[in-house]
């Protein structure tokens, strides 16, 4: 019972944060509300009995992707914020609101059919590792090859540019 109440609180907080994210006119507050949404998604992963993915979500999304967005927000010029609600009340944006609401109702209709209370199976990290590195090893190899090739290319490009600009090498 406590678990149900906690889950409903998480859904409510997510809803309020998403609405706030869309409506607020200050981009840094939008990033803060996105952080709240990502933390709520991590809590939803914890409710589904996979703390591994909850922590990966927190470390990667809330720890790194939000930092990237904050850097992007703070390093770009933005014009003085006009009223976002007035912007959102134009005909074009109202059409989009209707579209998003219809999309949400469609998903709700699909989810209403899945009412069986299912116990959430625990998948241990060993099983995840087995499936990732044995069954899905093709994807892992492809990603590794891509990252390796792009890293070598990036190092080559940077060293060529540095050699063209000056000959000094800073640091250790």
């Amino acid at each position, binding site marked *: 019972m*406590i678990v149900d109440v906690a889950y409903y609180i998480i859904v409510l907080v997510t809803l309020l944060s998403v609405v706030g994210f869309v409506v607020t006119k*200050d981009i*840094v*507050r939008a990033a*803060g509300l996105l*952080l709240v949404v990502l933390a709520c998604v991590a809590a939803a992963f914890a409710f589904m009995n996979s*703390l*591994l993915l909850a*922590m*990966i979500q*927190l*470390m990667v999304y*809330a*720890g*790194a992707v*939000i*930092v990237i967005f*904050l*850097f992007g927000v*703070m390093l770009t010029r933005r014009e003085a914020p006009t009223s976002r609600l007035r912007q959102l009340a134009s005909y074009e944006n109202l059409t989009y609101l209707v579209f998003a609401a219809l999309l949400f109702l469609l998903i709700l209709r699909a989810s209403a059919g899945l009412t069986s209370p299912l116990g959430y199976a625990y998948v*241990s*990290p060993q099983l995840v590792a087995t499936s990732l590195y044995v069954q899905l090893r093709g994807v892992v190899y492809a990603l590794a090859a891509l990252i390796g090739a792009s890293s070598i290319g990036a190092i080559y490009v940077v060293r060529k540019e540095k050699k063209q600009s000056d000959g000094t090498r*800073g*640091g*250790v």
Partner: protein
Amino acid sequence: MNTQITLTGIIVFIERNVYLRFLLVAIVAFIIVSIGSLIELYIERKFWARIMSRYGPTEVGKFGTLQLIADAVKFLVKEDFSPAAADKTIYNLVPVFSVTVSFASLLAIPFDYTVASLFPSSLHPLTFVASNFDPSLLVAFGFFALEPLIVLFGGWAAGGKYTLIGGFRSAAQLISYEIPLVLSFLSVVVLAQSLNLFQIIQTQAHSWPFAVLAFPAFITFTVALLAELERTPFDLTEADTELVSGWNTEYGGTKFLLVYLSEYIRAFAGSAILVSLFLGGWLGPAPIPPLIWLFLKTIIVFTVLVWIRAAYPRVRIDQMLALGWRILIPVSAVWLILTPFVAHVAMMHGALA
């Protein structure tokens, strides 16, 4: 006779009610961590002072022990201001978030195997701190690694450009040193074959401590931990003799107390993770209970960190970035690749379980 029955009744009631047990464990862990942080703060001031040939606090309390309480009261009675250009919501929330995240990373560190010794006639031993869940190392590290976010929001929220730049520099340092931290503890995960901190400590019960088996990982983890905790030689972002305080310049009074406290709780958490991963956690010979062993090892590790702080000068920012990206990442990555071979050799000679 009556008190014996009541005590047993209370223990049985606690054990039958899961949420009450979690609450009790949380309260006891909170008390232990707070005491640990206060002891650490005291050691920081006295030990650093003695290395510098001065005495440190001696007036308040018998050897300056109550100085910390005096400082806390001083911070608490100051005026609660906020800069005019600040974003008040984020400015007020950042210290709270900082303390929450620092305490949350201590959820996953197993403090003790059993506290049966505290209840002389207990029926079943209570397993202390339910930290025997599978990704507990990721939980401990994940909350620890939410710091760049706090630093960026804190630096921006005060509304000035110097705190913002200080926030960027701190975030750059913290993000750069997360990678060698993760690669170092991955070597330990390969040796122990589990992400569970409880299991990692249990593996060290039957084998050599991982500080010996994964020695390069131990060194890179310690250096990366120094940079993650923003301690000298890596405290260039809050160099308090040069800049004022980096990202937390505009925080005063209670908010600064919370930020400062969260720094030392993170130091306790980082030292506890280092002790659990590399030095064997609560393992130790019999007469000292396991909880005190963990505490003792954490305090000794923190004393070594204070010693390093007193002895080394500060690095520049380009030296710090070069050390992180050019030296620590290749060393820890190469050691991670070599770890399975080391594990195989160690298993053949009985040095690993």
